[in-house]
């Protein structure tokens, strides 16, 4: 069964034996290779199965798994480098700058298109976008495949306070300038 006449997969043996001898050689090789294969399967049959009952058990992932992204939003500077690096153009972001503080509106990743290539992760100057170990992305419609990576939207109280402080400082500076004039 293993190697047969005219089999493209088996390389031609250099000294071509007569066809009658080849018949016996083929027969012998077929029987022997089948027996070898069967013995391998038999040995595997008595080994512990390597299958994992997935929903109940899960595989241990090594640290480099490229799963669903997560964003460290407080580090992000809205530089758009990740979106530009993305070959399938699946990252969309929008924010308003208030001085140094950012008012986040949108940071979505479209997993209909994303191929989990990690090209968005490398160029990030702040090292704030990562791929995690979550991989089960099961939804019933396509809209749910567009994931929002933001942990908060708009401005936090802290940011508002900082903005207020910078504005107050700015106002104070302006006032001093006016005084100086």
């Amino acid at each position, binding site marked *: 069964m293993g190697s*047969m006449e005219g089999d493209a997969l088996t390389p031609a043996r250099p000294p071509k034996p007569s066809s009658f001898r080849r*018949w016996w050689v*083929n*027969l012998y090789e077929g029987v022997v290779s*089948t027996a070898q294969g*069967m013995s391998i*399967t038999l040995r595997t*049959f008595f080994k512990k199965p390597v299958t994992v*009952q997935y929903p*109940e058990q899960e595989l241990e992932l090594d640290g480099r798994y490229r799963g669903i992204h997560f964003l460290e939003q407080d580090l992000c500077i809205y530089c758009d480098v990740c979106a530009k690096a993305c070959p399938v153009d699946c990252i969309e972001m929008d924010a308003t700058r208030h001085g140094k503080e950012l008012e986040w509106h949108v940071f979505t990743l479209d997993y209909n298109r994303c191929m989990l290539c990690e090209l968005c992760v490398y160029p990030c100057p702040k090292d704030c976008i990562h791929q995690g170990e979550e991989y089960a992305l099961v939804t019933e419609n396509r809209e749910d495949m567009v994931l929002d990576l933001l942990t908060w939207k708009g401005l936090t109280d802290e940011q508002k306070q900082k903005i207020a402080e910078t504005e107050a400082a700015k106002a104070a500076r302006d006032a001093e300038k006016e005084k100086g004039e």
Partner: protein
Amino acid sequence: MRTGGWHGWSQTLADAIKLLTKEDILPSGADPVLFRLAPALVMGSALAMFAVLPFAPGIQFADLDLGIYFLLAIASLTTIGVIMAGWGSNNKWSLYGAMRGAAQAASYEIPLALSLIPPILHFGTFSLLNATEQQSGWGGMGWYVFSDAFWVAIPSFFLFLTASLAENRRAPFDLPESESELVAGFHTEYSGLRFAFFFLEEYAAMFATSAVATAYWLGGWNFPGMTLLAEGSAWLPWLGALAFLLKAMFLVCVMIWVRWTLPRLRIDQVMTLGWKYLTPLALGLMVAAAGWEAWRAMP
């Protein structure tokens, strides 16, 4: 029932219930008569094979004079069922599968029947019951493979197993339903219970051919230690049936084991193997067996 209980025992049950309750689809382009008739023909002929199997002393539906000959004839009817299914589905993949099935079954029926000739010559009977009874010697170990003709018996046994794999459309000869090329071959269009019939037929035919191999080569219900039982013991039918089923199921397992191991052959390889290798081998074995039996019968 997702993981099917202890070692998945209830998976088969769940599958059966699933197939029973699934929608029965008749494709709009299909031929209604042939499409409906094919599973019945296939299943009916697979079940008719069981009529002549000798399970244990006194447990056999019919002991025909023609036992194995009848079984071969009935087995060849499944080929017609396969062609009927392939044509009736009105689907090109089904038709390809059916054509392959027909070519393959017609080719392998010859080595299959020829490889049965050594045991038939040895026991001098078509009857499976008679052949089994003749193997009861040596305390239940007088099987054909252990007889003085073992050097014919063992090759013909493997030949029979190989040819029956092809005859039952099992891997590595499952070209009629090779899913990577033909979706599911001749039963692509079938669903629900009609599909289940094709599925069951395959396993029923596997069991039937394994049972034939058991009865002719592996001593049927005879098992070592049988002579310790009293004559006419009530235990004998039960233990005999157990021995028969164990041997036959072992051969079924071997067929499944082959499926784990060998990749599917190409159709030209299947034909080459059948015509250029198995048929001459079977003919040679037939001549060897005839010579041996004639030598033995000489005064």
